[in-house]
């Protein structure tokens, strides 16, 4: 592979044979992962053992013309490698040690779409094999430390995080949050700059002249990576709270979640490349148990109206302030 590009993502150095402008160039550190975009072609299922799939409805995504029951992503194994097939776009092959990633796109798949799938779908799954836990969550930095928002797609994770960022609270992650254990608690790692928002959200809460970019050729969402408007933090920080975003509600309320429910929720929002790996499941079971015990987890109910975002932010900050001495003392 003629790798000419070198980047950082979630504390990992990735080299690639195509430019990945969404990522920050990395000048030092050992290469831990390499990506190669192959020529377009049609995938073959010869020798592939399929063991899992995400359906579109499970991920809360509606692609143009796709039925909700269609698989968004199929997980398989072939000759010891993992195979991740996006039926509408192409196939990624990942070596068992997760160091090598190859993508064979379908003939009509744009390179931008490959980049989106690599960064927002494949890399979180790869990181799930390398890190203690990777959550489908956004996160921002407050004066109390990092706070994260986990929830199903479409529940407002990115919107809430962007709402904080617009007020000067730096973004850590849009929807892939890596957590590592440390002496003082669980540390949240920055993922990569930028967020993805629906056009209606862009129009409602962002400055009118802000530059947005396509996420992928058919994607509805827009990508925003202007760090002057949405500041980013590039250092790991202690995670103080995790908020679970619940269904739309008439008013904003925050309630403590029991340790048991916290554990189930962490599993629900954790990425997992291989759900058939018993050793990994046991390790993840121990990890979510530890996180559930050590990170205060709350459910937040709030109205899904742009006009109430400020009140929701204030409620969260007030909640952090009021319980600071009780809940974050370790």
């Amino acid at each position, binding site marked *: 592979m003629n790798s000419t590009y070198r980047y950082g993502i979630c504390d990992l150095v990735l080299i690639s044979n195509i430019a990945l402008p969404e990522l920050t160039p990395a000048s030092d550190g050992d290469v831990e992962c390499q990506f190669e975009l192959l020529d377009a072609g049609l995938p073959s299922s010869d020798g592939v053992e399929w063991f899992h799939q995400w359906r579109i409805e499970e991920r809360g995504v509606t692609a143009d013309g796709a039925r909700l029951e269609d698989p968004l992503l199929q997980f398989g194994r072939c000759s010891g490698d993992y195979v991740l097939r996006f039926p509408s776009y192409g196939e990624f092959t990942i070596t068992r040690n997760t160091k090598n990633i190859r993508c064979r796109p379908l003939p009509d798949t744009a390179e931008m779409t490959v980049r989106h799938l690599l960064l927002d779908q494949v890399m979180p799954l790869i990181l799930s094999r390398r890190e203690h836990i990777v959550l489908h969550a956004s996160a921002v930095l407050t004066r109390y430390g990092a706070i994260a928002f986990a929830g199903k797609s479409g529940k407002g994770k990115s919107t809430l995080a962007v709402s904080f960022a617009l007020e000067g609270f730096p973004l850590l992650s849009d929807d892939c949050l890596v957590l590592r254990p440390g002496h003082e608690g669980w540390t949240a790692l920055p993922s990569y700059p930028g967020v993805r928002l629906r056009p209606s959200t862009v129009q409602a809460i962002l400055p009118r002249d802000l530059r947005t970019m396509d996420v992928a050729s058919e994607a509805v969402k827009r990508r925003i990576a202007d760090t002057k408007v949405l500041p980013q933090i590039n250092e790991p920080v202690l995670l103080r709270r995790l908020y679970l975003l619940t269904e739309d509600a008439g008013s904003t309320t925050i309630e403590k979640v029991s*340790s048991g429910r916290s*554990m189930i929720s962490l599993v629900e929002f954790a990425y997992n490349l291989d759900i058939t790996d*018993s050793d990994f499941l046991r390790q993840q079971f121990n990890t979510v148990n530890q996180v559930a015990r050590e990170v205060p987890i709350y459910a937040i109910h709030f109205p899904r109206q742009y006009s109430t975002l400020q009140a929701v932010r204030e409620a969260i900050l007030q909640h952090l302030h009021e319980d600071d001495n009780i809940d974050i003392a370790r």
Partner: protein
Amino acid sequence: MPDEVATRKLGDETILLNLKTGTYFGLDAVGSRFVELLETSSEIAAAHRVMLQEFEVTAEVLEADLLRLAEEMCAKRLLVVDTN
């Protein structure tokens, strides 16, 4: 309980995980006590006798609750019941 089921007690609650299927299941205080007793006696009837002394509930209601829970756990491969 099958060997492939891992359990963790968190306060009054217990979380079960089937390591073969990846299925997670949460139990409240009553369910936790039921599983705890099953791990020692392996008999639903024995668990029922002990829990009848510990919880304010009629024998009929407790029996129905435990059987329903056992059935649900069996369906999720978190419990194997030997009907003999």
